[in-house]
């Protein structure tokens, strides 16, 4: 007993962190790390979620190569990735517009931030009405200017863009708040020096302000990429992937394959998820590398 105690005493700095981490680590491994391994494993099986699993090797992946719907979803994901990025400059310009100290500006800022706080389900519903061909505000506006109305969400050509536009609404608000905070800590002396050198407007923004906003930009890009690749809620609420699967993204297609009226194909769904995961890994690696460099620099 005495030996045990002195062992604990001597090594308490070695043992303590593991005790503190144990519950969190246990939960995280059970619910996040292990399921990733599990999904990769399931992707090599044919499985309906209940019965026996049948090992089929890489058949699911081979099937993916010939699956039109998979390519359509993949393509839509890339459209999402590219257009969703607009939230970053939009957010920056809104932040610049709001970065003043007139009376009541704080209330204004929080009202502008509203769309980010509400659920994407509500955002999706709101925009479904906005786009409605019979009474939606969008068509009223188009017709007011003499155009002919379009049923955005029922038209294969526009549906994905319509959903992305809706998604940009909360995402822009998110980027705006990141930039507003970034702008708070911009160095006043550098701006003054810039003004003495006659830098104004765009030049000032590009050469003096933006370099200082780099951390905010980095986070804005990261959260926007994640948001684009995770896009599921909006698609599910606004179109359920339709019309004819033309607005599916990988996250939604995977869900549809795994449990829906089209049958419970867990293995195939898992294979789609693995592809999505690999795309995301590119960004995760990029992010971790940057974190690693920052950590090393701080030590």
């Amino acid at each position, binding site marked *: 007993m005495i030996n045990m105690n002195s062992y604990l005493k001597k090594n308490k700095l070695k043992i*303590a962190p593991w005790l*503190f981490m144990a519950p969190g680590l246990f939960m*995280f491994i059970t619910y*996040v790390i292990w399921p990733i391994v599990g999904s990769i494993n399931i992707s090599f099986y044919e499985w309906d979620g209940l019965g026996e699993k049948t090992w089929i090797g890489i058949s699911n992946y081979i099937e993916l190569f010939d699956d039109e719907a998979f390519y359509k979803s993949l393509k839509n994901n890339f459209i999402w990735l590219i257009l969703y990025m607009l939230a970053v400059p939009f957010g920056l310009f809104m932040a610049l517009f709001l970065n003043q100290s007139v009376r009541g500006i704080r209330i204004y800022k929080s009202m502008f931030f509203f*769309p980010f706080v509400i659920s994407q389900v509500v955002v999706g519903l709101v925009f479904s009405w906005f786009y409605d061909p019979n009474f939606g505000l969008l068509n009223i506006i188009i017709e007011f200017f003499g155009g002919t109305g379009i049923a955005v969400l029922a038209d294969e050509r526009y549906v994905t863009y319509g959903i992305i536009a809706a998604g940009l609404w909360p995402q822009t608000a998110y980027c705006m708040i990141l930039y507003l905070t970034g702008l708070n800590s911009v160095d006043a002396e550098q701006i003054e020096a810039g003004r003495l050198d006659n830098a104004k407007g765009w030049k000032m923004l590009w050469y003096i302000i933006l370099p200082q906003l780099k951390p905010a930009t980095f986070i804005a890009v990261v959260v926007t990429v994640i948001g684009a690749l995770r896009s599921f809620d909006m698609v599910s609420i606004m179109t359920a992937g339709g019309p004819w699967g033309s607005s599916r993204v990988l996250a939604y297609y995977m*869900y549809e394959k*795994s449990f829906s009226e089209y049958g419970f194909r867990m293995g195939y769904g898992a294979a789609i998820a693995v592809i999505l995961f690999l795309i995301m890994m590119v960004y995760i690696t990029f992010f*971790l590398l940057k974190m690693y460099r920052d950590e090393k620099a701080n030590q």
Partner: protein
Amino acid sequence: MFPKPIENSNIITQSVYRVALPIVLIIWLLPLIAVALTSVRSGGDLFAGNYWGWPTSFNLLENYTSVFENTPLAKYMWNSFRVTIPTVLGTVALSCMTGFALAVYNFKGNLLIFFMFIAGNFVPFQILMVPVRDLSVQMGVYNSVWALILFHIAFQAGFCTLFMRNFIKALPRELIEAARVEGVSEFQIFWYIVIPLMKPAIAALSVLIFTFIWNDYFWATVLTQGVDSQPITAGLHSLNGQWISQWHLVSAGSIVAALPPVIMFFTMQKHFIAGLTLGAVK
């Protein structure tokens, strides 16, 4: 300050700015304003095609009572609270400890575990879907609020650990060193020295996690079905299917669903923004 403070410019620019501000705000919130207006319209208004004009009558009480009386909206709301509050408590408790361990101790694998938490936080949910659903079924919690609570606590641990670890790392190290010299135990250091200093971080995280979990839709559809366990986001989706063309009810439901996080944001705004940016922009 950038851009140039507006009070230094001439009176015309100032007035233009003051007028532009509310106009831009109204355009920005137009979809939301429309929903709020629709939620107080009468069914007759909608039938007559008056979707965007001024309502002919304000049926605020009728519509909102009708939503609560004729649909299980209240039940869905209650489920949302039953999921969200335990998740917030659990996540904060776990991440205080993991964050403390990773910030204070130098041990082998520290950075590796830290990066594992960060990476897990960015993973697309879909790769977890099938195994987590399976696990919940096996544990017998599938289709109950516990399925959601347990999963959310575990998943949010990623982001929250990153957040807490960075916060604790920025605290003065001498405090801890001095306590150790005094012979204070590691747990007492955590409980009596570090936790009191973490109050702002705990407040910020709580508000943020509350909003994230309240708004979750994906896991709500994967892990629960039916009125007994589904939170409001999933509930709203199924009500939307039943209420076809009763837009005044759909919009009243949407407003109700949006209210708790909005109130949370308005009352705790300072913490909310601190949360978003502390974890993000260091």
